[in-house]
């Protein structure tokens, strides 16, 4: 027998891959040090990150939280760390965070002079109950719109919310929002039951006419009359007292909520074959989009004042809301038009061949696809609008940025700078990041694998 013992007769067991190719080390080798150039880049980046964090982390965490003024802050820093450089004075946030969140909104509207520290004994609701409840209800109202798997009857809250929100925030007679809401009931009632009698177009015209008569002529006296019989209402809060992050959220939510439907209508109008509608929409979009938002805000705050007769009570916040909304609408219209343009012609023809009319085709076939395509653009517009609300500080409304100036104008906090901006940035980041994550979730959910 020849000796063939050098030939293996059994398979060797599989060896574990070398430590340098798997696990943490493998990942690092592959992703961070895969060549001399990448290695240099990695080291430079790490050095840069270390440089930033080594200043930022001590500044953020080795900080003073309890002090009455910037001088006290500096005193404490000197005692604790021997120097004042590189330590944050968060005491200003500790002192003024309620103001940055709510502006001058009274914590207990029924007792306008009461403060949080000095709560009236009779007040049984917690401080800032009304704005807080408005915010919580906002999420309840948004939930069924944003998440399709929630029970559908939650949509009732969404329908009521636009009337509830102004009443909760501004207060006053409950009958004002009720009568205004009743105008919409008239509008839809006449359309629904009038269609059979006088045809669609006539019913719509009659409904709009009836609703306008109700809102302009009847609703005021009716609301007053009902209030005289049944005085249900909340203590009134003036627009001047709105401020802080609450104002930013209020402006942002209204602009976002209204600009999407208006934007859809404008985008459809721009694609319309009807000459007048098309020209109106193009004119509106191009004019509003061609003007900086700050110009529109100046129109709202300054120019309108010249045109309106002196003493006219046209609420400044409502004026700003209108301007921000039309600005966002114009941008949204173009984003949605992009979505419409991206749809293949076959989709329109398919809808036609099914015998759907214009609105059915839009509702069932065109819009769901066009909006899905436009999600990143729409959310991007929303985030932009939300951040743009800080521009109102230039026309003297006290949003967080405006308030930071007011806070610095107190001698005790004069000279403080980064801490206020860091706090405001954090607030905005939470909201904008939330919107961004939701849009990514929605895109994944609606992903139907066409591309």
């Amino acid at each position, binding site marked *: 027998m020849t000796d063939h013992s050098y030939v293996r007769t059994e398979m060797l067991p599989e060896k574990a891959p070398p430590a340098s190719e798997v696990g943490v080390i493998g990942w690092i080798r592959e992703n961070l040090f895969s060549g001399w150039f990448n290695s240099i880049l990695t080291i430079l980046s790490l050095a840069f990150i270390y440089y930033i964090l080594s200043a930022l982390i001590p500044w953020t965490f080795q900080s003073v939280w309890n002090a009455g003024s*910037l001088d006290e802050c*500096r005193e404490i820093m000197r005692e604790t760390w021997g120097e*004042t450089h590189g330590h944050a004075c968060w005491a200003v946030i500790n*002192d*003024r965070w309620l*103001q940055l969140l709510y*502006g*001058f909104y009274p914590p207990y509207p029924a007792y306008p002079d009461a*403060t949080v520290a000095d709560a009236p004994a009779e007040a049984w609701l917690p401080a800032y109950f009304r704005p807080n409840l408005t915010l919580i209800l906002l999420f309840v109202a948004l939930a069924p719109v944003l998440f399709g798997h929630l029970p559908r009857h939650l949509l009732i809250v969404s329908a009521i919310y636009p009337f509830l929100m*102004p009443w909760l925030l*501004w207060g*006053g007679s409950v009958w*004002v929002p009720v009568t*205004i809401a009743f105008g919409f009931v008239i509008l839809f009632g006449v359309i629904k039951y009038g269609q059979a009698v006088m045809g669609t177009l006539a019913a719509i015209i009659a409904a709009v006419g009836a609703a306008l008569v109700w*809102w*302009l002529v009847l*609703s*005021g006296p009716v*609301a007053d009359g009902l209030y005289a019989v049944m005085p249900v209402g909340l203590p009134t809060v*003036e*627009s*001047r*007292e709105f401020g802080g992050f609450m104002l930013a959220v209020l402006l942002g939510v209204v602009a976002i909520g209204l600009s999407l439907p208006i934007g859809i209508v404008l985008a459809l109008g721009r694609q319309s074959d009807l000459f007048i509608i098309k020209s109106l929409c193009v004119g509106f979009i191009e004019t509003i989009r061609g003007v900086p938002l700050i110009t529109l805000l*100046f129109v709202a*705050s*300054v120019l309108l*004042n*010249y*045109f*309106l*007769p*002196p*003493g*006219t*009570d*046209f*609420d400044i916040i*409502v004026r700003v809301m209108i301007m921000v909304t039309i600005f966002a609408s114009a941008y949204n219209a173009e984003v949605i038009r992009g979505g419409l343009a991206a749809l293949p012609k076959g989709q329109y023809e398919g809808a036609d061949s099914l015998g759907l009319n214009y609105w059915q085709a839009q509702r069932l076939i065109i819009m769901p696809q066009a909006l899905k395509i436009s999600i990143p653009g729409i959310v991007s517009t929303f985030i932009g609008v939300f951040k743009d609300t800080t521009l109102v*500080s*230039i*026309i*003297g*409304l*006290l949003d967080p940025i*405006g*308030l930071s*100036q*007011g*806070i*610095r*104008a*107190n*001698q005790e906090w*004069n*000279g403080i*700078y980064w801490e206020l901006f860091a706090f405001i940035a954090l607030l905005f980041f939470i909201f904008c990041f939330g919107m961004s994550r939701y849009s990514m979730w929605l895109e994944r959910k609606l992903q139907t694998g066409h591309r």
Partner: protein
Amino acid sequence: MKKSVILGALTVAGLSAGAAAAATLDDIKARGKLNCGVTTGLVGFAAPDANGEWQGFDVGVCRAVAAAVLGDPSAVEFVPTTGKTRFTALASGEIDMLARNTTWTLSRDVDLKNEFVGVNYYDGQGFMVPKGLGVSSAKELNGATVCIQTGTTTELNLADYFRANDMEYEPVPIETNAEAQQQYLAGACDVYTTDASGLAATRATFESPGDHVILPEIISKEPLGPLVRHGDQEWGDIVRWTLNALIAAEEFGLTSANVEELASNGTDKPEVNRILGVEGTLGEMLGLESDWAVNAIAAGGNYGELFEKHIGENTPVGLARGLNAQWQDGGLMYAPPFR
């Protein structure tokens, strides 16, 4: 809220602008509140405190007028205005008076159709430099980099001053006072220039105020005062004489502590009695109650008390009276006779 929008739109159609300009006093009385325009925040002059209460030297003027007109120094709606919105807010009737450290100039008085009713603070533009620069006079600033707020009269004054003295400078344009502080401390400019009161307030916030000096030269006149719009002289008179009452009260030793008592007992000086409403009918002439001046003085004190409380030498702002002293003490505060 929505109702007022609709009403507003309807009134546009129904009324022509300017029809309701007069009778500001009646509007205020009907409203029960004085709408007073203030700055969005300037140390010592106007700022909201932690409870949202406005405090400051200009705010004190608003409160005095509210007390004179309505008898209640807290019956004021403070409307924050920016440098860009202040005059339109006044012209449109959004505010009844503006007390926003506004410099009295001819064009603002005449062309913008305002009526400056007096001066509550004589300011002027100054320079602040770090001590290490070794400069003791503005004349030595040739070639300096200067932090300057854009779009203000200070920018023009600076150019005039350097040209008149045949010097060069490099401007570092800056939007707000807070930003200017940061830039100046970071060494982006050698010199910071703005109103002297602003420089003092800014320096007070520095970690080591002693390392910075405010140069002695004051290069401009900045008389700051409250103003009302054209078209209602009666209302302008009320604001003017409320301010004068505060100034006269200091001259005659009427303070927030003693004014009530003196008003009930009367004094042996006829002019003081006229101010207090004990003699004569000055209040009636203005269309106010006879104790209007008593209320105005009791609201926050006389001119000197307001000054000491908000911007005087014992406050962090630490301004000396200087030009703002009474005329007997060599200042410019000089109230016309109450007769």
